[in-house]
């Protein structure tokens, strides 16, 4: 089983992104489940979402504490939440950031992936909604979910521009694999 934890703020489409991953993975014949944790439904509040992907039925109905992948839609959340908590060995980080130079990333995160999804979403969509760009980045970083299926679903929900945003996230993301030269 792969466990994914997403961090962001209300209004950034974090819950919907998790649902798009679930939808895409179900189309691939996998068992998947996600659920969010948020406070009162309002824009700007911290939101987490938890996704599990497996080849058999998902039974767990609890939050993800030991993620194989951490997706950070809003780096400002890092002041309030320890997004790296419980990261497994060989964990994949996908972060919405221009650079990761100033971040103190724990050693067990061996794949570091970053993209300025806020700027790219503004360019592509005219709005600062980073979630679809981040879905593409996630697909590239992990290889766990087919990017075409993610893009297709994003297009169905939000229109063609968001479909393109997923694909741009996939093509434009920077991937650093620690331990490789």
């Amino acid at each position, binding site marked *: 089983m792969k466990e994914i934890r997403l961090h962001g703020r209300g209004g950034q489409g974090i*819950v919907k992104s*998790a*649902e798009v991953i*679930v*939808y895409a993975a*179900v189309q691939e014949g996998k*068992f*998947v*489940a*996600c*659920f*969010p*944790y948020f406070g*009162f*439904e309002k824009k700007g509040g911290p939101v987490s979402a938890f996704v599990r992907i497996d080849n058999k039925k*998902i*039974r*767990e*109905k*609890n*939050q993800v*504490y030991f993620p194989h992948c951490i997706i950070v839609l809003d780096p400002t959340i890092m002041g309030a939440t320890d997004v790296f908590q419980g990261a497994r060995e060989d964990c994949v980080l996908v972060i919405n950031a221009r650079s990761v130079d100033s971040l103190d990333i724990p050693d067990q995160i061996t794949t570091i992936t970053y993209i300025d999804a806020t700027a790219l979403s503004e360019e592509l969509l005219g709005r600062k909604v980073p979630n679809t760009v981040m879905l593409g980045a996630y697909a590239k970083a992990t290889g766990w979910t087919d990017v075409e299926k993610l893009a297709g679903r994003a297009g169905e929900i939000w229109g063609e521009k968001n479909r393109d945003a997923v694909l741009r996230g996939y093509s434009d993301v920077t991937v650093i694999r620690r331990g490789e030269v």
Partner: protein
Amino acid sequence: MEKLVVVDGNHAAALGALLCRPDVVAAYPITPQTPLVEHFTQYIADGALDCAILEPESEHSAMSILEGASLAGGRTFTATSSQGLALMYEPYFRASTMRLPIVMDIVNREMISPQTIWGGPQDSLSVRDAGWIQIYVEDNQEILDMNVQAFKIAEHKDVLLPVNICFDGFYLSHMTEGVLVCEQEKVDAFLPKYLPEHVKLDPERPMAVDPLTPGAYLQYYRELHMQAMDNAKKVIQQVNDEFAQLFGRSYGGLVDTYRLEDADYVLITMGSLTGTARVAVDYARQKGVKVGILKLRSIRPFPKELVQQYLKGRKAAGVVDRNVSFGWHCGITYLEVLSAMGGALNMPLLPFIGGLGGEDLTIELLAKAIDYIVAAGKGRYNTPQQAIWLVKGEEE
């Protein structure tokens, strides 16, 4: 072939209700139930079904509308949560004592105060003695399937009682997963049109319903109501088996079990936390601990005989409650199990409380509960006078 959709628990509930072709739906929005009614209403707006939708000014009115509609012969459905259910209490009781086969989903949410919107079955469990059938489910497929079964149970001539399908707020209402949608033709065959025979408001045949009734008659009605609850035990099982035959999915009926056959120790659960408990049991089994799960599905009627049967000969058991019974210092289903066992209880039975107000019940906390049960079975831990609280950060 059944269609595979990707939906959250609220959406699964709406799809299940839709398959049953209700005539009237009246509901008032409340977190976390709101999307359920939104999804249902969207399907009606899109022309999926001819159904009257009413959005009255309160839950009290919503249930009152359904009572009128049910008395007029309609199949009726609604949903609510916590404070909404509290506001509905007066017509809630009347629905059952008038023997109206209304189906209402309760998207379980903790009761205030302090202010909370998150999950927990304190709302529905607190009204378990109001005469409704209450069934608690574990995942989204079970939500959809039980909404289909609920009408069949409610409308059965030996039952004629309203039914609550109860599922955890957020943990299920907002959890998205793949769900199979039963074929409409098969549901139509499984659940024929509702044709009331006992009571029906009809201008052609005027009838007075619910007049002022002296105690002797009221007592007789209560006796019949209790008998209907007893009948429901058999009907819930029959409907489960018939559904399983048609759709290939069985939930066990009044209870479900997991790795219980050879178990020395039993973890008794209800609702979505059962899924996490299954994982905790698998880990314990890997370490050689013979533990299994007894999952309570029907709380009203309470499966007393099955609880006795499944606990017989075990070394120890424990009940995990995501709710409290003030004044007893334990959870509500613990008391139910204790009552069911009565004089037959010859093992330690431990009360656990955790996961209140949407607090996460982790695999580690459920493993801790198993450890307590095993220790009690080995005589190293006595049955406490107060609940053992499962608190994150205190796993050791």
